[in-house]
């Protein structure tokens, strides 16, 4: 179990990730704020506590892998990688510039610390399954974490990967389903619903399923990862999150891709900065 003090630190890290993610997207002026914010807490826990990695040796054979199958949340990963020592985070304030090393969709060829290239939804999950299988064949015990959107889970490929992973009992693959309830054209309920829910679906596919009622709570997330560890099956953590979490304007709009006005940007950045300040003060 993680101590309360450590949880506070990780919450602070998550807020740093939120602020930096905003700054990265602000450098371009528009982007996928909502889907970046909903995974900030899980990223903080993974990179702050759980994952085995070395920013000096990003391709280290026995590292844990993190695959953003919902590749459009790139800015959240860049903030996390930057704050974890892969590169100065302000280098990512070049989001989508010509010849940038930070495109909004993650690309392993151009960004240090990005494990696989994604952007075409569905593809990251299958590749992650391949990594888990490749590692097992080489007796590497690393874990593979893959973030999947609830809209992304419309793709047939998601379920092809789910059946493959369960069939081959790739227990080192842990899927983090960002169940924020929204995709591009609206709510998942309106656009394409998931029957009895994504948890029930993964269960039917033979997975160990853990519902995380507040997927933006480090404490709940930490407890869920603890449980996942003892499973002999691949685990799907169904993270009940909020799209835009922590950024009031984005929580309210639920927007997929947003182009805030200058005033709105100011408000969002200020909100995130103040929250971080308060958390730092409380930590003292």
């Amino acid at each position, binding site marked *: 179990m993680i101590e309360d003090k450590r949880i506070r630190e990780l919450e602070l890290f998550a807020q740093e990730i939120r602020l930096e993610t905003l700054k990265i997207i602000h450098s371009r002026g528009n982007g996928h704020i909502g889907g970046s914010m909903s995974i900030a807490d899980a990223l903080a826990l993974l990179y702050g506590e759980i994952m085995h990695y070395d920013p000096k040796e990003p391709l280290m054979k026995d590292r844990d892998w993190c695959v953003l199958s919902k*590749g459009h949340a790139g800015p959240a990963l860049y903030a996390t990688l930057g704050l974890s020592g892969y590169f100065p985070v302000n280098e990512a304030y070049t989001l989508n510039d*010509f010849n940038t090393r930070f495109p*909004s*969709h993650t*690309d392993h060829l151009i960004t240090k610390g990005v494990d696989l*290239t994604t*952007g075409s939804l569905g593809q990251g999950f299958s590749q992650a399954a391949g990594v888990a299988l490749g590692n097992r064949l080489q007796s590497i015990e690393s874990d593979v974490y893959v973030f999947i959107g609830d809209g992304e889970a419309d793709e*047939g490929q998601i379920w092809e990967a789910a059946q493959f992973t369960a069939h081959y009992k790739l227990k080192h693959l842990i899927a983090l389903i960002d169940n924020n309830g929204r995709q591009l054209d609206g709510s998942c309920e309106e656009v394409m619903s998931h029957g009895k829910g994504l948890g029930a679906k993964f269960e039917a596919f033979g997975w160990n399923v853990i519902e995380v009622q507040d997927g933006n709570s480090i404490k709940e997330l930490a407890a869920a990862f603890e449980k996942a560890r003892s499973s002999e099956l691949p685990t799907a953590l169904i993270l009940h999150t909020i799209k835009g979490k922590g950024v009031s304007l984005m929580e309210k709009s639920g927007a997929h891709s947003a182009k805030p006005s200058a005033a709105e940007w100011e408000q969002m950045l200020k909100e995130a900065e103040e929250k971080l300040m308060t958390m730092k003060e409380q930590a003292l």
Partner: protein
Amino acid sequence: MSYTLIGNHQKDPRANCDGYVDAMIEMMKDDKRIVHIDCDLAACINATRIQKAYPERFFNAGIAEANAMGVAAGMAATGMIPFMHSFGVFAGRRAFDQAFLAGGYSHWPIHVIGSDPGVTAAFNGATHMPFEDAGLYLTIPDAVVIDSADYVQTYALTKKLVKQEGITYMRLIRKDHKQVYGDGSDFEIGKGVLLKQGSDVTIVASGIMVNNALEAIEKLSLEGISASLIDMHTWKPLDEKLLLEQAQITGCVVSAENHLVNCGLGSMVAQCLSEKLPLPQEFIGNHSRYGKCGPQSDLEKDYGMTAEDIMEAALRAIDRKG
């Protein structure tokens, strides 16, 4: 076919995608067979307006392009006329087996709309930048393949698509493109538009390259060179008659496309010329590279697709006439 050329290199006052949406809303009023199927990208092309106007004939298939294509084929089998939209990369690569067999081979009229062609995908970057989408559809033996240039042309051609009996693919620029045509211009599928009559070189272009070619022709004329320009909005079936006629007059050709040159407009033109009228041809477009991220203007320079590039290619082609 009748048209007026604006071609003053100004931004089109209307978003190109609205040409598609406006035509659809008008057609769907009278023809109850027409449906729009989207893949969670309706908002990107304002197809939400179709949803508002005809909620019972708008279907969101979610982020599941292959299934959407198959569903479109099945609906077509019942006599419906489905239009199916996704980004070009996904309407192309991700749903292509379905498009080829359930659409093409089965000979059902599915009208596939692929948005953000080539460099217009800009900030969405490499994974979202289709330089091969139209090329894939060119491999379907009886497909119609279109790369339209602006609002007016998209509007007119959408209305013609609905009369096609097999599978069709149209590339759809979203917005921020240049206006080429005046209101009320009309076009026929398979009939190129002779925008300029010249004598030294023929430029064959489509989509965003039509405006770049118009700019190139202005620059060429300052050097005393007179160029023909064909807007070849339909790549397949190719208007061979117009191409050969102009190639005969000018003696050399430059093809200009926002696509891979080895499987697109340039290669269609080259095949026709090499079989029927072998002449020097220069290729403007993407020469075997992947997509990348950035502002469209930088990408046009990077892939060698600007007016200057077309102009230089024209000079090279003329040089090669010998």
